[in-house]
């Protein structure tokens, strides 16, 4: 008989701050819904075989999250479906109260890790068509990532080419626990297609390519897995830089979603130092590793590192050597959601907040300025 007076929402924001949320999760509510977007052959396959991935947990993930479904316990929509699956509830709980100008959807449906490449590609088509019909065409504030069967770069590129012209898609999604480090040539067709369409590659926390998150095997606890994910991101940053991805695709950009950012300065220092000594090994690199990172990579804030002294965060940003590399994200509806009000330390300079909350993402994704558009109409 628990009684709630109403949905307790974040109070409507009074400040003039403008927000772009770079990491929101829309969830496929059920296989039945997805089936409507699958051709009969793959619908039958779904019933007969279902998800089969590279890791040993075909229908589960090895580390169940801190909360049911890894979500905020207040994010279950009243219609009884799973968090992130109900657009209206997302509007009510996130888009309206945060006064979001844009929100970018990253659907984590496991298309990328299917043993059957063609099934993975069919799932990707279904998920992307579902995103267009149920999200992008219904809500002008939302943008989305193209999901792809990324272990087969050819099929992945086909899918990028198929849907990239839809204006709602702003990037291509890969999860960092790939079969091989992402700089390897086996993935280059993906980068070629993305670059051709002017779309960045988004690398989002998760994925189960069969390798452990750590470089020394599977850990015991979820807390270890969650923290270790930063390692997976570091491996991808190093690999993309050192394999020459940004030399080969000079107009390609990437964004690391939910991998943290406090480690980035020390990684840049370390790579630059080694590059001075070992340059001969990678002679195709024409710039210092840190320059590729600063020039081609962005990082989202959530989960914000919470140092014991809030000012340390400002120091980290100073060490990044750029105030354009960070972009705000909530990770709604997941359990480690960051609210913009309390996540940033109170002494955070307003001009920096404005860049992180809004400017950096708007220019990274080349999103139209809504206020200018409104002024034009007048």
């Amino acid at each position: 008989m628990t009684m709630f007076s109403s949905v307790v929402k974040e109070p409507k924001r009074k400040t003039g701050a403008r927000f772009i949320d770079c990491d929101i999760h829309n969830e496929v509510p059920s296989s039945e819904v997805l089936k409507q977007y699958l051709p009969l052959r793959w619908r039958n396959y779904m019933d007969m075989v279902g998800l089969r991935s590279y890791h040993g947990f075909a229908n589960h993930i090895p580390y169940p999250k801190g909360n049911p479904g890894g979500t905020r316990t207040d994010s279950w929509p009243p219609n009884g479906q799973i968090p992130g699956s109900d657009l209206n509830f997302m509007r009510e709980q996130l888009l309206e109260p945060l006064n979001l100008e844009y929100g970018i959807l990253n659907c984590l449906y496991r298309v990328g890790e299917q043993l059957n490449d063609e099934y993975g590609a069919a799932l990707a088509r279904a998920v992307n068509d579902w995103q267009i019909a149920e999200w992008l065409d219904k809500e002008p504030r939302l943008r989305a990532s193209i999901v792809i069967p990324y272990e087969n770069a050819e099929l992945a590129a086909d899918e990028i080419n198929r849907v990239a012209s839809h204006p709602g898609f702003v990037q291509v999604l890969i999860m960092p626990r790939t079969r091989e480090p992402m700089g390897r040539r086996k993935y280059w067709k993906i980068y070629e297609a993305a670059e051709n369409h002017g779309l960045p590659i988004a690398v989002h926390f998760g994925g189960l390519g069969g390798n452990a998150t750590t470089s020394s095997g599977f850990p015991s606890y979820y807390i270890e897995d969650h923290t270790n994910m930063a390692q997976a991101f570091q491996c991808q940053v190093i690999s993309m830089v050192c394999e020459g991805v940004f030399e080969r695709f000079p107009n390609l950009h990437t964004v690391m979603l939910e991998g943290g950012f406090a480690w980035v300065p020390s990684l840049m220092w370390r790579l630059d130092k080694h590059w001075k000594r070992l340059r001969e090994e990678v002679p195709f690199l024409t710039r210092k590793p840190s320059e590729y990172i600063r020039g081609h990579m962005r990082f989202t804030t959530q989960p914000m590192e919470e140092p014991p002294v809030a000012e340390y965060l400002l120091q980290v940003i100073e060490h990044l050597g750029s105030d354009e590399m960070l972009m705000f994200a909530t990770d709604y509806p997941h359990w480690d959601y960051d609210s913009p009000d309390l996540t940033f330390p109170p002494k955070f300079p307003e001009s920096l907040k404005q860049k992180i909350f809004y400017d950096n993402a708007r220019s990274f994704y080349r999103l139209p300025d809504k206020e200018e558009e409104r002024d034009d109409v007048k």
Partner: protein
Amino acid sequence: MLNNKQKYIVGTVDELPPGERKIVNVGGRSIGVFNVDGEFFALRNRCPHGGAPLCEGVLSGFVQSKGRGDYSYARKGEILRCPWHQWEFDIKTGQSWFDPVKTRVRAYETKVEAGCTLADAGCEMKEGPYVAETFSVSLDKDYIVLEI
């Protein structure tokens, strides 16, 4: 009136059996009132960490350990876990268990008063979910009163 605190009637005692909660808006604040084994406690419905609606969280207990392999579960139903990042707060005091000095959520005083007492004091009550002046207080019922 005590310490200039404002009193609000949040409901009758029978409405809120042990283990249950009610979230009310009083004095411009959202507050959760909990019945823990017949005692009433009230906490601000806003998590001091990231602003979540704390009182919608799951009620649990403390898992304690003296070392690997040794686990015990104590204070069942007295620890409120935030719906977002699962920080744990003691429902009786509003203190977080891992950082009790710095991190605490505002706790409010609650008490149970008999309907007949309230009827006498009716005009002192402020508008809450129940408005004392207009809500007909039954003399033979007990009411949960929140002081903020």
